């Protein structure tokens, strides 16, 4: 029932609910804290040995196309007031990649996003965007290659109906035939499940649908990279799942998805390659599971370990280490259920 309400549960409780459905522990109270969960595991004999996954079961990770779309070398940006927002960061973004840029407020994430879409130009270092220096792009042409969905989608809306929003993007692309605009608008609205709201004012949509429309207006130009700022900010669990599924669909079509976030749970559940920023510097560039084992970086970036990773640490401490390839709550829950059923 909680699932249908879209409520975020701690990972420990999610696992507890999952195990409740497995044989034998229906009457056990649902654990909330890590120690309650460890007690439950001990009671059910789930901590007698470690957990591993076979190569076949493990989700393929970190595979990326060799084609580099964006490349930053020693990239710097300083605001006119003298504040250094980026202090020499080096990174690449590949085709079809799923990348999360992580960091607390003021880490430089949004400045980096503004550089990537051409709203700001670097004040030092080199930034190559789709084979051309950043300084040689103008914002509107670049928008056909990399589309930024703002944290507040309302900022992007320019018209008075959902259909007109898509139509506006098509007209900005140079499409002028009204019949073509209408047809392509319907196709896009159908793809993103917005046909029913075709004539609704964009500001009257729910938060989730506004986000969808924001994504739709930017996808019309068939960009190579979709850059989304805080996609799940203020969203419930169900809406987050829907949005992330949409992002996965977009990635499956070959579009690189770059997400700016400070939600560690999102990184845990959906992360692949992660860039961690702090004070305008790049502290980490690697797979998400690697980040959760780097205490120093988490501390430096002022990021917190997720409950799942605290639980995994405790399990290791109690003699049941879990392989690092197990990274999502659902992965661990599945392994525990298998152990419970004796498989």
């Amino acid at each position, binding site marked *: 029932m909680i699932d249908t309400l879209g409520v975020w549960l701690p990972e420990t409780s999610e696992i507890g609910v999952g195990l409740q459905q497995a044989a034998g522990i229906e009457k056990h109270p649902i654990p909330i804290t890590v120690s309650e969960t460890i007690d439950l595991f001990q009671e059910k004999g789930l901590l007698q040995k470690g957990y591993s996954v076979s190569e076949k079961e493990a989700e393929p990770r970190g595979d990326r196309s060799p084609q580099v779309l964006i490349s930053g070398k020693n990239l710097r940006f300083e*605001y*006119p*007031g003298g504040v250094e927002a980026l202090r020499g960061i080096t990174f690449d973004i590949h085709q079809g990649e799923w990348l999360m840029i992580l960091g607390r407020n003021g880490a430089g994430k949004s400045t980096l996003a503004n550089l990537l879409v051409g*709203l700001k130009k670097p004040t030092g270092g080199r930034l190559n965007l789709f084979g051309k220096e950043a300084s040689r792009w103008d914002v509107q042409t670049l928008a056909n290659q990399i589309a930024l969905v703002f944290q507040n989608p309302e*900022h*992007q809306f*320019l018209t008075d109906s959902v259909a007109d929003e898509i139509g506006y993007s098509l007209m900005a*692309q140079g499409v002028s035939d009204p019949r073509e605009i209408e047809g392509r608008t319907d196709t896009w609205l159908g793809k993103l499940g917005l046909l029913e709201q075709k004539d609704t004012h964009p500001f009257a949509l729910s938060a989730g649908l506004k986000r969808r429309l924001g994504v739709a207006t930017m996808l019309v130009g068939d960009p190579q990279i979709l850059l989304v700022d805080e996609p799940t900010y203020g969203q419930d669990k169900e809406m987050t799942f829907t949005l992330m599924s949409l992002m996965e669909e977009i990635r499956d079509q070959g579009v690189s998805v770059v997400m700016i976030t400070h939600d560690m749970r999102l990184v845990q559940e959906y992360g692949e390659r992660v860039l961690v920023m702090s004070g305008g510097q790049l502290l980490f560039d690697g797979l998400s599971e690697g980040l959760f084992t780097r205490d120093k970086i988490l501390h430096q970036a002022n990021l917190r370990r997720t409950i799942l990773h605290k639980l995994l640490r405790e399990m290791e401490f109690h003699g049941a280490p879990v392989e690092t390839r197990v990274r999502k709550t659902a992965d661990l829950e599945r392994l525990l259920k298998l152990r419970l059923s004796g498989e």
Partner: protein
Amino acid sequence: MSEQEHGLNYIAKDSLMHRIYPLTKLAWVFVVAAGLFFYRTPYTGAIMFGVILFMALVVSRVPLATFLGSSKLIFGLGLILMVFHFFADPGQPVYRLGPLTITDGGLQEGPIFFFRLSVVVLASFVLIWTTDTRDLMVSLANAGVPYRYAFAVFLALRFLPLIQREVEAVRSAHTIRGRAAQSGLIHRFKLWQRYMFTVLVNGLRKAEMAAIALECRGFGASRQRTYIKPVKYRPVSLVLVAVFLVFQVGLIYLERSGILA
């Protein structure tokens, strides 16, 4: 545009201007602004502008980059007003631009209005750059303004950078979405309409949330309000107002006596 760029925020420094009592600084802005209405030549306004600029960069230790970052706001309105006067004021025609005529009267009056507005805006900016909005609120309450009203001033100043950030976010988003209309003017007007709509809607939401938060924290329940950081009035601060009052009168006297004509 970030806060760093538009620079319309308090800059925490230890300058002479920062140490002056907030209400005295407010009075200083009024003295500067009031005197401007007596100026009849652009030279007087230019001298006052130079003095306020000195107050900003040297006395208040405001970084030059911050001043330059805000220059669009400081000079923009003044320039618009000056150009308007070029065409609108009566006088002998000097230059014709289609149906519009620039007059000699306009050329004389335009720069006066330019400096009037630029000086007021710059002096207000010096107040914002050197005054913590919370200190201003406390000093207003100390002066007997009911704290409900003092807090309203505080909230208005607190919201200003947020609104500015919002306008900039909307502008960036619209830039990225490109232009669908053929006519530049029509497109600009529609964008302006949308800025207003988005900023107004989000402003109302923020105001509603702030009101709910204030209610939840029992704002106004107690007659007496206490503050964590006291702001003490020091009479020496009045020297600033006195010096500018004398300077202002002297400047107007020199102008009227023909020396600055």
